[in-house]
């Protein structure tokens, strides 16, 4: 009896799990689970944003100097790249919902992954690597520059937050790429139908969340310090 149930479960193409009454209930549970996970994530990043805000108000001058060490052009490009990736993610869900060929779903997913990879490449190769070369990576030969005056430690603190925040964000991106890989495999096996696309949907929620975090990070890290204000420096 129970063996049969196990067999049925493994052979079940819809991925229906035994503890649920029906697929509808299972899908609802999946969606709710992801929303609660995102609530956790908000508090996770919230703790860091709070710390950042407090220190920025304590050391405004040093944080301005720190912000000017970052390259806005890469930050801006990456913002655009991520927004596009959210669009392609949404399109992949849309194509599953409307019953497009699995090639279409896979196409949008891979496009999303490429955009995500582009983001990481720009971030690591042209930002982090250069920061390391210029000795402004805390803990890895950070050197105070004379023009910072006594602000050195606080500039280092800004850079610390920069690497911590963008590093954790990048970690979330990498996890996201892993999830997308699984989705591509599932799509290739023809698992998604107009009835069943919950994995796509909740992965999409995650991906959009990671994008939104960046939307907050970009101005907080790159655009402060009166860089573009009319009466600024």
């Amino acid at each position, binding site marked *: 009896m129970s063996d049969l149930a196990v067999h049925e479960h493994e052979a079940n193409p819809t991925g229906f799990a035994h503890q649920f009454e029906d697929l509808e209930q299972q899908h609802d549970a999946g969606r709710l689970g992801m929303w609660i996970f995102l609530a956790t994530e908000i508090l996770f990043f919230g703790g860091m944003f709070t710390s950042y805000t407090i220190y920025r108000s304590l*050391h*405004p*001058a040093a944080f301005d100097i720190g912000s000017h060490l970052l390259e806005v052009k890469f930050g801006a490009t990456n913002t655009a790249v991520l927004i596009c990736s959210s669009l392609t993610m949404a399109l992949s869900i849309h194509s599953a919902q409307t019953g497009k060929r699995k090639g279409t779903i896979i196409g949008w997913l891979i496009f999303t992954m490429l955009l995500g990879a582009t983001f990481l490449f720009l971030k690591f190769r042209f930002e982090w690597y250069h920061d390391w070369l210029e000795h402004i990576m805390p803990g890895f030969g950070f050197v105070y520059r004379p023009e910072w*005056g*006594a*602000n050195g430690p606080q500039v280092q603190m800004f850079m610390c937050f920069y690497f911590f925040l963008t590093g954790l964000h990048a970690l979330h991106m990498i996890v996201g790429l892993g999830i997308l890989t699984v989705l591509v495999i599932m799509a290739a096996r023809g698992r998604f139908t107009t009835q069943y696309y919950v994995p796509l949907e909740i992965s999409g929620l995650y991906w959009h969340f990671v994008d939104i975090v960046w939307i907050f990070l970009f101005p907080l890290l790159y655009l402060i310090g009166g860089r573009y204000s009319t009466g600024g420096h």
Partner: protein
Amino acid sequence: MMGLTQPVIHGTAAVWAAFQLHPPTASSIADNVDKLYYFLTGITLFFTILIFSIIFVFMIKYRRRSEDEIPEGTHTSMALELTWTIIPSLICVVIFIWASALYVRNARPPAASTEMFVVGKQWMWHIQHPEGPREIDELHVPVNVPIKMTMTSQDVIHDFYIPAFRVKKDVLPGRYTSLWFEANKIGTYHLFCAQYCGTNHSQMIGWVYVMSDADYAAWLAGGEKAESMAQQGERLFSQFGCNTCHTGDATGTGPSLAGLYGKPEKLQNGQTRVVDETFIRDAILAPSTVHVPGYAAGMPTFAGQVNEDQVLQLIAYVKSLGAQERTNAK
């Protein structure tokens, strides 16, 4: 030094002889705090006994007499629910108002307080009197004089705690905190560190000696002839070359410090800060953060060159300048 000034107690009988339920009360606020404490104890006892006796009575009265007994039904009563929501709330309001009023009153030192200075470091208390004497793990104070302790730490967070005075305040690195008390009973009392600070935390303790005015004056005079804190600060002021820029007149590249203490200053970064102990400390250790417009931004930091005791002496010196020339500065 290690709490051994009092005789060590041996034997069971002696242990029980030292049994006490009440700490000594030796400051002007201690009795008021105790009154609130006893009120709270009363509330606690009342409700604990109330709940325990109700449970006890119900336990006996409604014990199960047979296995298939069916109890009488009761209805949830809104009136009852509201009663035991509102009455505790009202009690809480009373306690809150009482405790907060007392706290606010105790938080503000009287204007005429004598200032003393504390530097906590692992694992000892450095105390400086304005007249100059310095002591370690001991604090001599005159009776019936309000005293404000300005405190900082050289390393980790400590906590300055005198149970007999019912006062306690964390001592933090990098900033000043303060507390005040007015001892009103001559005697010797414990001084504890009440914030865990590492290996010998439990030995970061000392004694507070509350003395009559005459005894205190004799104690001040009795030690090695020391300069006052302001004088020590003045010596440091020239030793570190502060006076080459802060000449006190228009020829200096740095602003004159006379009459500065207590004055609001508008800073380069747009903030306005009152010149207090923390401001002067920042000016010595992180000058760029309190840069005043109109002067060159070239003041070097003295972080690492002066210790916390010396910073306090320099502050005492700057404050003494203010006291002398406050009228001129206006």
